[in-house]
């Protein structure tokens, strides 16, 4: 495909989009589907048909619009009005009010605090495009960055842009993406692989799912650009089997991209070829760890192995492999299109760009948000999230899932970036943010995460397999208020041992929820210690 051809297709799709006077975009990502958004789409379509407005008004099922807790959510364009908790019976009113004042009873004003402070980079097309139609994605700029990279830039230039952008891995650890790419690019290997980690296993996290469901082409494009930059020809997307809708949309997206020639051989008439396959996880949290994930793609049990060698040197089938998270890949196209300087200008100096968070738990506005790095936790929880419901008091925010920790009230003004969160004993993680109010017991939260790690430990190394079980037993004693001073001491000792000696990230970070609650909520542990028995 040449430039003219590409431009023609894009222009045609844009014209098609603009031919409609009104667009009604209804969220059909998992959350809103659970609230019945598909019925809303049907009702709106029926209403439009009845009024003979098919050529004027287009109803589109789109990806996540953010405020998942108040679904189904929809947005009208060009009016730019959001509606929440929409029912099929609202259809007539919504269509009556197109181009006029919005329908008051379901209106979600643009100046709602939920939108203030948000900046959409990764999710820029989520809620605008129909994730099941590549044409719709093309009208909003999909594959333009790939076109630019593959036809106008050398791999080195792409690497330079990604490095200069300051993008860091969005899977949690925050390793500089450019550095990772450069390592793979430097490897002298005949076969190289690109792997996209979509095994979003942290409970409380649904960012990657939303990206897959809302804009699957963005992920494929990022992977293809990565492949071009490092010299890979094969790619795998590893998605957890629980994400049915995401899998279905990714499959469709791969097929459509192949058909259009954005994946496959000689992409954009260049010597560059890249194929993508989808692999399903099968319910093992440890497979989010990169070496375990590689083992799983190879059809084996998901056991991690010691690093080095890192996957960049010896990964999938012993070949040099680049593994990045879904959100990391989703950041690539905007970086190529807008330049590294633009990206580096968002967020903080050390943590550039935005981060998508899944805000959930005891908070008024639950949903998917994207904010520039460096925003404070308070801005997220009290501003965007609207504080704690039922007049209760905030107690802690849990970030990073079972590998992270609980952050208390006094640190709410901490900026969200990789380093600050680590200093507080938590981690950025993949982006789950669960808010807890004063009814949540921190000891039982710690036990909850320990139970999770105990169940999910693959059993290969002893510190993790036995350590998590012992810590779980100790924590149960605290929950049952039967603990002793000695138990507390032993618990702290075990935390230290397991984090220092486990083989992979799962074990190394398993004590984090315990350590952070011990640090900030030690009183709650002390209250669980049984009074010493009088000697008989």
């Amino acid at each position, binding site marked *: 495909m040449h430039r003219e051809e590409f431009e023609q297709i894009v222009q045609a799709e844009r014209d098609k989009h603009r031919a409609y006077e009104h667009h009604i975009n209804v969220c059909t990502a998992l959350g809103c589907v659970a609230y019945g958004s598909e019925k809303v789409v049907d009702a709106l379509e029926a209403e439009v048909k009845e009024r003979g407005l098919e050529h004027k008004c287009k109803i589109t099922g789109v990806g996540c619009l953010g405020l998942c807790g108040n679904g189904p959510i929809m947005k009208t364009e060009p009016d730019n009005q959001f509606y929440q908790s929409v029912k099929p019976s609202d259809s007539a009113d919504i269509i009556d009010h197109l181009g006029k004042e919005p329908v008051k009873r379901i209106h979600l004003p643009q100046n709602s605090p939920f939108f203030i402070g948000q900046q959409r980079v990764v999710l820029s097309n989520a809620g605008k495009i129909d994730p099941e139609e590549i044409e719709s994605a093309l009208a909003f700029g999909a594959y333009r960055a790939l076109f630019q990279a593959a036809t106008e830039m050398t791999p080195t230039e792409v690497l330079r842009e990604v490095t200069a952008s300051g993008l860091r891995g969005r899977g949690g650890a925050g390793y500089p993406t450019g550095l990772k790419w450069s390592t793979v690019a430097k490897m002298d290997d005949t076969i190289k692989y690109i792997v996209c980690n979509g095994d979003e296993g942290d409970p409380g996290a649904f960012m990657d799912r939303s990206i897959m469901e809302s804009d699957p082409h963005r992920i494929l494009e990022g992977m293809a650009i990565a492949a071009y930059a490092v010299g890979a020809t094969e790619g795998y997307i590893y998605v957890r089997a629980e*994400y049915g809708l995401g899998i279905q949309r990714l499959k469709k997206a791969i097929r459509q991209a192949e058909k259009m020639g954005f994946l496959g051989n000689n992409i954009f008439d260049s010597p560059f070829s890249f194929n993508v396959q989808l692999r399903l996880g099968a319910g093992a949290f440890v497979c989010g760890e990169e070496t375990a994930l590689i083992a799983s793609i190879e059809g084996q*049990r998901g056991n991690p192995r010691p690093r080095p060698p890192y996957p960049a040197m010896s990964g999938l089938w012993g070949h040099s492999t680049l593994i990045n998270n879904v959100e990391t890949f989703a950041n690539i196209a905007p970086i190529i299109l807008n330049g590294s300087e633009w990206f580096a200008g968002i967020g903080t100096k050390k943590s550039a760009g935005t981060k998508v968070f899944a805000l959930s738990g005891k908070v008024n506005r*639950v949903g998917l948000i994207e904010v520039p790095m460096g925003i404070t936790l308070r801005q997220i929880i009290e501003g965007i999230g609207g504080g704690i419901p039922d007049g209760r008091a905030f107690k802690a925010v849990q970030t990073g899932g079972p590998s992270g920790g609980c952050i208390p009230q006094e640190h709410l003004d901490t900026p969200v970036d990789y380093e600050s969160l680590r200093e507080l004993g938590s981690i950025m993680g993949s982006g789950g943010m669960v808010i807890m109010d004063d009814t949540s017991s921190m000891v039982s939260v710690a036990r909850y995460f320990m139970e999770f790690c105990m169940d999910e430990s693959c059993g290969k190394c002893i510190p993790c397999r036995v350590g998590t079980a012992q810590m779980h037993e100790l924590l149960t004693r605290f929950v049952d208020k039967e603990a002793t001073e000695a138990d507390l001491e032993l618990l702290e000792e075990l935390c230290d041992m397991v984090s220092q000696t486990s083989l992979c990230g799962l074990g190394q970070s398993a004590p984090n929820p315990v350590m952070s609650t011990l640090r900030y909520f030690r009183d709650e542990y002390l209250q669980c210690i049984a009074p010493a028995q009088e000697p008989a």
Partner: protein
Amino acid sequence: MVRPVEVAPPSDDKRWRIINATMRRYGYKPHALIETLHAVQEAFGFLDDASLSFVAQRLNVPMSKAYGVATFYHFFSLKPPARHNCVICLGTACYIKGSDQMLKSLGEAYGIEEGEITPDSEFALLSARCVGGCGQAPVAVVDGEVVSGLTPDNVVAMVREKINHAS
């Protein structure tokens, strides 16, 4: 190249064609094991000894490895499924909104524990680590459909209604 071992499927059920097609797509390579087991489970609902042994032979992997993989991953089931199933999400957001209480209520109503099936094979009570529906927490997945708006008090009625509606 290793020639694929010619093994007959355990029965002449037509669904084995899907399984064979899956293995063929991956060139009968051992790394197709997980994908093939997914196909078997989707077609038959669970993995029994006969299907595991067939897949293992066909992909040229030891039975021990096939069994190891099937038991390592939570998603695979070695027992036949119940007619209806309800998965209670125990993810963090659901947990702090009382999903463990919901699990308890359902268990009491059906007289089974988490992970068990009623004796008449009608209903299975399962739990998941997180279904990613944190925005609607607490949620359950009943026969593959996400159900929200649950409380420990209404969960039994909601689940029953969903199941009766389906059958």
